[in-house]
């Protein structure tokens, strides 16, 4: 597994079309934290798995839903978050002043702030996808139909 994306910027988006199949193993979040953010954590990941109303009713993914225009990018005062073509944001970590405005602006709680207020959001790289044992996640082309949260 490469630690850096060597290909040209992704033309695909991460979607979560089959979350009803989720078993709550957290493999996706742990993969994102491990591979993308070089951390061991449930939280510092672009996709976080929560139980919805207790374990008995299943799981939901907190991840970027590809807003365009993205409120987080509009809220960012330093250009660390800029609009990504096809929805979501491109993240420039060096420009981030850790104000937390992005997380506050996100309507679906997809941005996690750690204890230093560093924001973590999905960059649609797709490196979590192969770790899902039930194919809950899928990369779809930007030009395809609008991303769906659930089709099942």
């Amino acid at each position, binding site marked *: *597994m490469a630690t850096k994306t060597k290909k040209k910027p992704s033309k695909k988006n991460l979607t979560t079309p089959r979350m009803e199949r989720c*078993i709550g*193993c957290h493999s996706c979040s742990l993969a994102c934290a*491990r*591979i993308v953010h070089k*951390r061991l954590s449930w939280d510092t990941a672009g996709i976080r798995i929560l139980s919805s109303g207790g374990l008995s009713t299943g799981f939901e993914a907190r991840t970027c839903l590809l807003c365009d225009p993205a409120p987080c990018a509009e809220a960012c005062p330093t250009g660390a978050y800029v609009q990504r073509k096809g929805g979501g944001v491109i993240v420039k970590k060096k420009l981030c002043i850790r104000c937390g405005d992005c997380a506050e602006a996100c309507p679906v709680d997809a941005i996690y702030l750690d*204890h230093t207020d560093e924001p973590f959001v999905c960059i649609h790289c797709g490196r979590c996808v192969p770790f899902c044992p039930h194919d809950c996640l899928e990369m779809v082309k930007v030009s395809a139909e609008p991303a769906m949260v659930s089709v099942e």
Partner: protein
Amino acid sequence: MIRDHFRVLIVDLSSGRGHIEEVDGRNTEAGGSGLGALLYEKYGHAEQPWNHPDQPLILAIGPLTGYFPLMSKTVCAFKSPYHDQYAESHAGGRSALALRFADLDALVVTGVARNPSCLSFGSKHLDLVDVAYMWGTDVQASGKLLRQMSGGSGHRSILRIGPAGETGSAMACINVDTYRHFGRLGSGAVMGSKNLKAIVIQGDGVFPLKETTKYSKLFSEVHKKLTATDMMMKYHSLGTASNLESLNTMQSLPWRNLKQTTDPAIEGITGQKFADDTLLRSMACSGCPVGCIHMGFVREKFRKENRYVYRQVSYDYEPIFATGSMLGVTDAFAVLNIMDVVEKVGLDVMSAGVALAWATEALEKGIISEEETLVALRFGEAKTYEEAVRHLGTGANDFYRLLSQGTLKAAGHYGGSDFACVLGQEMGGYATGEVYFAAQSLGLRHSHLDSGGYSYDQKHDDKDVDKAVDFLVSDEQGRVFLTSMVACLFARGVYTDELLADCLRAVGYHPLADNMEAVSQNIQRLRWKTRFATGFDPQGVKIPKRFTEVTTWKGPIDQVFLETLKREYGKRLVELAKEEKVASE
């Protein structure tokens, strides 16, 4: 976090305060099972009874917890109310990763809380909250209250007890995240004795990974082995419930208090039947892509005009054996309904089922009457068993209170010890033969997971005592290393010694990787030393007559072989506990 010591949170419930201690032993006791015994040696009181306020309740994870797939279990160590000796119980769910992300290798809880309380902690907080209003609630209701009062959905672990734990049942479990359990040997009563209704662990810490390329590559390889090959198929397809049919075919499935080992009525409770008719979905422990937790459903018509409630009940081989074949209940939904009541009252399902099977036969034989059992127990009468489980879990009368201390305790008072299916504790679902009977009788956890005795029986029909004892001792040694990491034992086929060493090295535990043999020996000895220090006497463990009346695929049980095996295995355990610690490099 990778460190050369253990970071342990010590909480005194009497004061509501805690502190962090750094405990040495990473390179000799590793974690999990080894750490549990190490901490009991340090904080436990071998000579005091199990419910002495100073006795510790210990939760321990291992060096690989959270770092690799299926390193997802927690070890609970305590002095058991069942036999007043050192005990271990293991559970999945989220508690292991929650402890990891709370930046702890272990939790040690001592003292008694002034009021019924919930201990809540994470990487940045520690609170003891008065939950007197929750005392008496069942496991399902308390789970809902606890979810409501604590944040961190999905990234927390909620442990709680039901009425069985509150009333001191030696069969009380600690429920972990609704569908997993520290099941056996009464850890729930230890929490109850401490006025501790619940523990909520928030996994809110974040840890940097120093060298990620090599580690991530190895992680991916392990993940692939666990998901892309068919090695784990049996666990996520039909699940452990697939064993019902195969053990029944091998004449090794206990039926109706072990009066039989096979029955054509198996058709109603096979793994396939459960999957076809009752399976709703699968779930996983955090950090495990296998997803072996099988969720069945039951529904109940509470008004004639088609008003229903439905509930989800997790099933596995052992609970189906205990509430199905052992009680002669052969309808899958009826079995799930009994399990559902077991869950609510917070009992260990295997102990409860086996105890009620004995009570049923005792009633049949006229040793006890309905005055004791309150309901007319009869094999196959599922609804009656639901009521009986409630009586057992709440300690409804003197009979049930005594039975909940152990079937042999009740048999000691009323008679009927010949047909009590107890091998150190109520039997696991393996009537496979002499090796398993000896192994569970003397195993440290009195569990089928202590060693592969049940598997040995299925492959060997010779009567070589030395060979069998060698197998039990060496197999246990391998397993204690895994349960010190702490791996799910379902992964034992994947995590070879070589792979474990690679994993340890990949995250920086080189001394452990270099000394696995010595470390596993140390842990095995320390655990036995701890058990013996609390009063274990292998020769004092009797195997009831019922086990000698069993016929398996190998034929009738050979009593001489069984007794010789038990005696020689017991001698080896005494020797093991006396051996000196092996020096690590």
